[in-house]
């Protein structure tokens, strides 16, 4: 193995990792605070990708602006998330996990068909923003500027989210809600509004991630169910509900996948599922999480 080959695999692994972190971070936050495993998170991501394509195609005549589209996609999905939380999810908090799983799965089915109905089944793609065209040479391989950008966005969101959780007053409330929802309510905090806020942030991240993937992968039906399982793996490896765990989980996932392809090209898919199973068996609460009662 040459240095450039290894560098190439590391870089592609890290790009995958940061993408998955963008998606999985929202999933992890919602599970950590609300104890809801959101199957529809992948659908939010897909809707974000379609919205980004839509906005770009609207803006095309006046000089397409990818960044506006990305923010619009995030905002649009955040609104969708708010509606879902307020109208549906809210009524199932007290019940068993099974009912929440099924509700979010119903949303997977419905949103998947809504996307198919609205945007058809063809592959749609979005051009890279011109400012990020081209690449930089790194250790004998070329790293596309766009991938470099993604590799910076991931840690930026991680640090921002981490600071929000550990330093801000909203973060303190969120951590309290994760510990004991009833007690927090009894102390006079508006837990309902807090949950809605949490869900909106999580949906925004999913929509943003969907928009940011469009220059790299084409937008197709089925990307929702494919990505959600990957996001689950990342969240499980890092520890359900652990924010930084999700970050490192994504890094481990990305590197396992990219080096797994080198070692066993046939079974790289297999290797990440195996990783998930092994983590669940050895440390169900994840490599970086703490056991939950």
């Amino acid at each position, binding site marked *: 193995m040459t240095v450039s080959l290894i560098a190439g695999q590391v870089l592609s692994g890290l790009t995958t990792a940061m993408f998955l972190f963008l998606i999985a971070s929202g999933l992890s936050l919602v599970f950590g605070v609300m104890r809801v495993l959101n199957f529809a998170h992948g659908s939010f991501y897909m809707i974000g990708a379609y919205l980004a394509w839509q906005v770009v195609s609207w803006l095309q005549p006046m000089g397409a602006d990818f960044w506006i589209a990305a923010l619009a996609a995030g905002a649009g999905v955040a609104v969708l998330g708010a509606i879902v939380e307020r109208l549906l999810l809210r009524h199932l908090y007290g019940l068993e996990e099974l009912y929440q799983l099924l509700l979010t799965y119903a949303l997977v089915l419905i949103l998947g068909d809504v996307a198919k109905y609205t945007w058809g089944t063809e592959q749609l793609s979005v051009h890279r923003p011109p400012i990020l065209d081209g690449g930089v040479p790194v250790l004998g391989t070329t790293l596309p500027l766009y991938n470099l950008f993604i590799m910076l966005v991931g840690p930026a969101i991680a640090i921002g989210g981490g600071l929000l959780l550990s330093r801000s007053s909203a973060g303190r409330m969120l951590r309290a809600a994760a510990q004991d929802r009833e007690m927090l309510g009894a102390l006079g905090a508006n837990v309902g509004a807090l949950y809605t806020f949490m869900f909106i942030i999580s949906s925004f991240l999913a929509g943003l991630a969907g928009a940011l993937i469009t220059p790299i992968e084409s937008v197709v039906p089925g990307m929702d169910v494919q990505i959600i399982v990957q996001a689950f793996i990342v969240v499980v490896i890092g520890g359900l509900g652990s924010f930084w765990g999700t970050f490192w989980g994504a890094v481990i996932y990305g590197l396992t996948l990219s080096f797994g392809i080198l070692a066993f090209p046939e079974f790289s898919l297999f290797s990440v599922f195996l990783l998930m199973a092994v983590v*669940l068996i050895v440390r*169900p609460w994840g490599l970086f999480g703490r056991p939950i009662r």
Partner: protein
Amino acid sequence: MSVPLTRTLVRPAAPPARRVPWTLLIFLLLLPLPWIGSRYDVFLMNQIMIDALFAVSLNLLLGTTGLVSFGHVAYFGVGAYVCGILMKTCGVPFIIAFPAAGLGAAFFSLVFGYFCVRLTKIYFAMLTLAFSQIVWAVCFKWDAVTGGDQGVADVPFPDMHWMDAVPGLGELSQNSKFYVLTLILVAVSIAAIGQITRSPFGRMLTAIRDNRERAAFIGLNVRAFELSAFVVAGGFAGLSGALYGIFTRGVFPDYVYWPQSAQVMIMTILGGMNYFWGPAIGALVLDWLNQEITNYTQYWPFVLGSILLVLLFALPGGVLGGLARLGGALRRWTARDA
């Protein structure tokens, strides 16, 4: 008290609905279909029976033991692949391939279940999902044995010449003969699951569902019971998978993809997971609706999602739970009138 717990658990007073031999009744009801129904009826009912067995096997975990398995399709898939590969590639007769499918699926559930029952709740669900995705990834990529994304095509029908000896059966088409074969095998399997559910072993599972800690306190080896339930459920899922592979004349990796696990779970809950026959009713309603609605629109998932929403908010006990509630309301109403 010194009364052994098992004695009180073995035979609770059976309500009248329990005393009806439902399996036999439904078997006799469905038997004449190939002679009186259209080809379409036979096709649809065949699929419903296979799905019913699959859903009833899941309910042994979901409703009876209270284990939310999100990867039950793995064992369905293992059964389908074992039977398909044995019959297509190795030319093994059905009478050996069918039990082999059940045993193969049970073996996989034993290995996977050994790890799964160590976890609870959401972690249990995630681990079952992970294992089912491992099975999927292997089926999808292992070209040499599973045919990769092409799957195992052209799985042959079993040899059903022995039916010619039975008067009336000989003139039926291959599809109708397979319907009769499915009916017999599914009826026997469901009757067996029913016996298991009503046995002392099944009562123990329900005790675990109702209160895991208390069941452990009275000396039950909870994990061993859960693992046994997991293996039995996986084995019967494998049998239904074997039938399904022959029914659709092929086995494909899509059969093992995780949304299929969600689909069978929806069937179970749609019918009512607190009732033995609930999952079968769910399979009936869902498969029938699927056929009817796909005639009009390609957006079946949308309809299914909407059904699920209605179910969650308006009918949490499923179809049978709703009927029971309606029956109770009617009884109260007539009692007040009298």
